[in-house]
């Protein structure tokens, strides 16, 4: 394997991805990601200099419309699936300590 994924890298990716891995999952993830990157590195064979990155296949740009409200108050629907709610809002753990 050419791409060796360190403990620090997996730790960092875990922070970015907001995932907490068990020891076993962590070792598996290191191996999987290393193998995947080895495979993906195949793209380095291609000369892509001067090629613009294509995020969308069609030449579409931003789609604008007038900001006219078309919905009624949807707050109860928005909250309908909340794991916890209070006073018409989502309830989350204390964020400012």
């Amino acid at each position, binding site marked *: 394997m050419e791409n060796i994924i360190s403990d620090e890298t997996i730790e960092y990716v875990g922070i970015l991805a*907001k995932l907490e891995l068990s020891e076993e999952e962590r070792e598996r993830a290191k191996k999987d*990601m290393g193998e995947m990157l080895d*495979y993906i*590195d195949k793209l380095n064979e291609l000369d892509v200099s001067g*090629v613009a990155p294509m*995020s969308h296949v069609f030449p579409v740009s931003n789609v604008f419309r007038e900001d006219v409200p078309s919905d009624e108050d949807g707050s109860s629907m928005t909250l309908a699936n909340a794991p916890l709610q209070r006073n018409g809002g989502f309830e989350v753990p204390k964020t400012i300590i």
Partner: protein
Amino acid sequence: MDLMSLTAAELGRKIKAKEVSVTEAVTAALEAIEKREGMVHSFVTVDKEGALLAAKEVQRKIDDGTLRGPLAGVPAAVKDNMCTEGLLTTCSSKILSNFMPTYTATAVQNLKEAGMVVIGKTNMDEFAMGSTTETSAYGVTRNPWNTEHVPGGSSGGSCAAVAAEECSLALGSDTGGSIRQPSSFCGVTGLKPTYGTVSRYGLIAYGSSLDQIGPVAKDVTDCAALLEAVASYDNKDSTSIWRESYQFTEALVDDVKGLKIGIPRDYFGEGLDTEVKEAVLAAAKALEEKGAIVEEFDLGLVEYAIPAYYIIACAEASSNLARFDGVKYGYRTKDYEGLHNMYKKSRSEGFGAEVKRRIMLGSFVLSSGYYDAYYLRALRTKALIKQEFDKAFAKYDVILGPAAPTTAPKIGQSLGDPIKMYLGDIYTISVNLAGLPGISLPCGTDRAGLPIGLQLIGDCFKENNIIRAAYAYERTRTYEHSPVAM
């Protein structure tokens, strides 16, 4: 008469002619589900009550002339990543085990407005990430042709349900082959439309720049009719494309004289099963005998599509799946200390292994220091792949090849080696990168009796070329019912 052995169009005609009531059609589907679910497990949720209620409403609208479409009254299934108001939508994930949408996806809404009755939500790989429907949190779906084999994925439930004749047709979604590959494995017909043709509003996103909803059915006629029903410009989807025409059924013509078909040599090399190869080339021969002009060509860059796809799809997935945080909907962990711990624990307990693997890879390729080397390079590769297809479509109307390199593998053989599993998507993935339409339809079975799929790829907005070629080829065959449906 077994109503479920009919095609959707045939059943629709009988309903229209009042030979069959909508309730009878829906009841037939529900009875088939009761009988066959134990063998295939195509569904996460069966909405018996809702379907029977909807059947009465649809019947009333047919009787008073409000509903006149060819598919009115036909029982349909919907992949469980499309939101259905008041009907559980899980994406086959634990993290959405209790998610009850408060609105309906545009494609499903269109399907209902055409008079089809939603009988349930079909099983899939968790968040559409997988090629076997084995990563579902709600158990594996089995292939109706041989229940020891996978149905393919990620729309394995939709394809198995159609093949097992538990519904007349179904909606699937395709990000890297997720309609075409399971259609191939299950001996049914599935079409991935040009990107932007069917609204993604209400489709739970995986790789937004690649995802498209499309039809799964027994034959090309049903596929074209279902696509015609669900495709629409939608201002709720900013990537929706307004098209001049949505008349896909007008391409159902048994005439391919002069149609130029290109066969990429690169699709017939190493890794392709001999029986698949022979069946696909025999299909090309059949089209040639009907007057199509068939020749081989070099497509180029084929081996770069999979690595580019996994970078782009995982990058988009890592961003799209950030919304599952235990705050707004879905699963929240029981015990936690503070906000970040709650996020991490809810996500870690809620997502399965394959989803975590892709979110992590996506987070990595988007992270500072790697973004240019991986993500931007993949987007540049995508541009080159699109150019290769542009060159091909300057010469050909249709590109013909296999949908998958093999027939359906056995259950339990794929997940251990992810890269090997990803390689199985080699013929389907580039179609998503280039935004093209593609259809998979049966072209035979292997010695083990498992179906083989023929893939036809068209240029952007040229669904009608592939529908016409598929229809003409289909006329040379008869539909084979899966053993489970017999």
